[in-house]
């Protein structure tokens, strides 16, 4: 299945990580950082669920949160094709 939205999102995230993110240095209280998380989430879970996961992660990233190691959850079912797209 072709997911053009996913394509655009991945492109935008990569552009952000290349051009804007380095301007501010590391600020994320989590590992992987929010943008890495978003990129990975969209790649693994597709544009819809991936975006939802990313938005929730950014919402979790604030000075009152403890931070820590917070990887993208594994796909819910095995029928989701999870081959490394890159």
């Amino acid at each position, binding site marked *: 299945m072709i997911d053009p939205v996913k394509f655009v999102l991945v492109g935008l995230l990569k552009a952000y990580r290349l051009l804007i993110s380095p*301007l501010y240095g590391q600020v994320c*209280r989590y590992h992987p950082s929010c943008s890495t998380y978003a990129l990975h989430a969209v790649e693994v879970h597709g544009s819809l669920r991936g975006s939802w996961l990313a938005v929730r992660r950014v919402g979790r*990233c604030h000075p009152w*949160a*403890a*931070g820590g*190691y917070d990887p993208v959850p594994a796909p819910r079912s095995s029928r989701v094709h999870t081959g490394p797209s890159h």
Partner: protein
Amino acid sequence: MGDLLSTIGTPLYYAISAIWLAWHRLFDLLPISSGWSWTLAIIGLTITIRALLIPLFVKQIKSSRNMQLIQPKVKELQKKYGHDRERLAQETMKLYKDTGTNPFASCLPLILQMPIFLSLFHLLRNAADRHPKGFLDQADVDQISGGKIFGAGISDTLTHPDNTNVVVLAVILVISMTATTFITQRQLMSKNMPADAMSGPYAQQQKLLLYVLPIVFAVGGIAFPIGLMLYWTTSNLWTMGQQFYVIRNNPAPGTPAAQAKADRDRAKAVRHGHGDVAVDTAAPAVEAPEEPRQRQQPKRQTREQRKQSSRPNQPKKDQ
């Protein structure tokens, strides 16, 4: 989509224009042109926004306060996972979480400022076309649209310059924005990064970006009106000052900034007449971050005292 954005944006237009107008009323009391009054009001708006974000900043400082204490554990992890960058990052973050100490600010301050920046952008764009928006009425937008500083219109952009003054001022502002961002990043990297983080491919890439990004930044800045660039420059200046404060008072352990602070603290101890103590404290230069200097001294001395009691030939004055 546009409707959705304007629904979210409308309250923001009102809020931002209200703050802007309030500052304008204040500066209007001064004998300056309306262009200058609106311009200074933009700087006032920036200061208001950044001041409102101070609680976030304070919270971040507090949560990074114990970095000194967990430093031995960080070193341990570096020794254990130094060969595996990913694993090291995971374990370090886990440690930050478990100890409630995290040196990073999160992206919230940035995310909160983005809609404010965009609102001001729209307000200025509309004012340039003499469209009232938010609390700005027709008289206000007429003033803003015709408002000039150094002969350059505050709602003009470099892509549609009215005259050469706009070009000159825009170029100066682009340079200022670039310079402030550059200095802030450079200060962070040269003073507040441990030497081992400064090597490796990641640091090399960051160093390269440090030189490349100001150019990207400048190109992006060209499309913004003079007033917005002023907002951005002021905000950058604030960030620079804020970071200067952090690096001076809460330096990351094991960095040149931490060394400088240790030296300053020692010099201070000597000045306050604890010369004999200073000799003792010279060895453990890495001490608790800051705070109660007066109370720390006796605590440290009693510990010395305890040690000294086994060596009776060195009497120390008890406080």
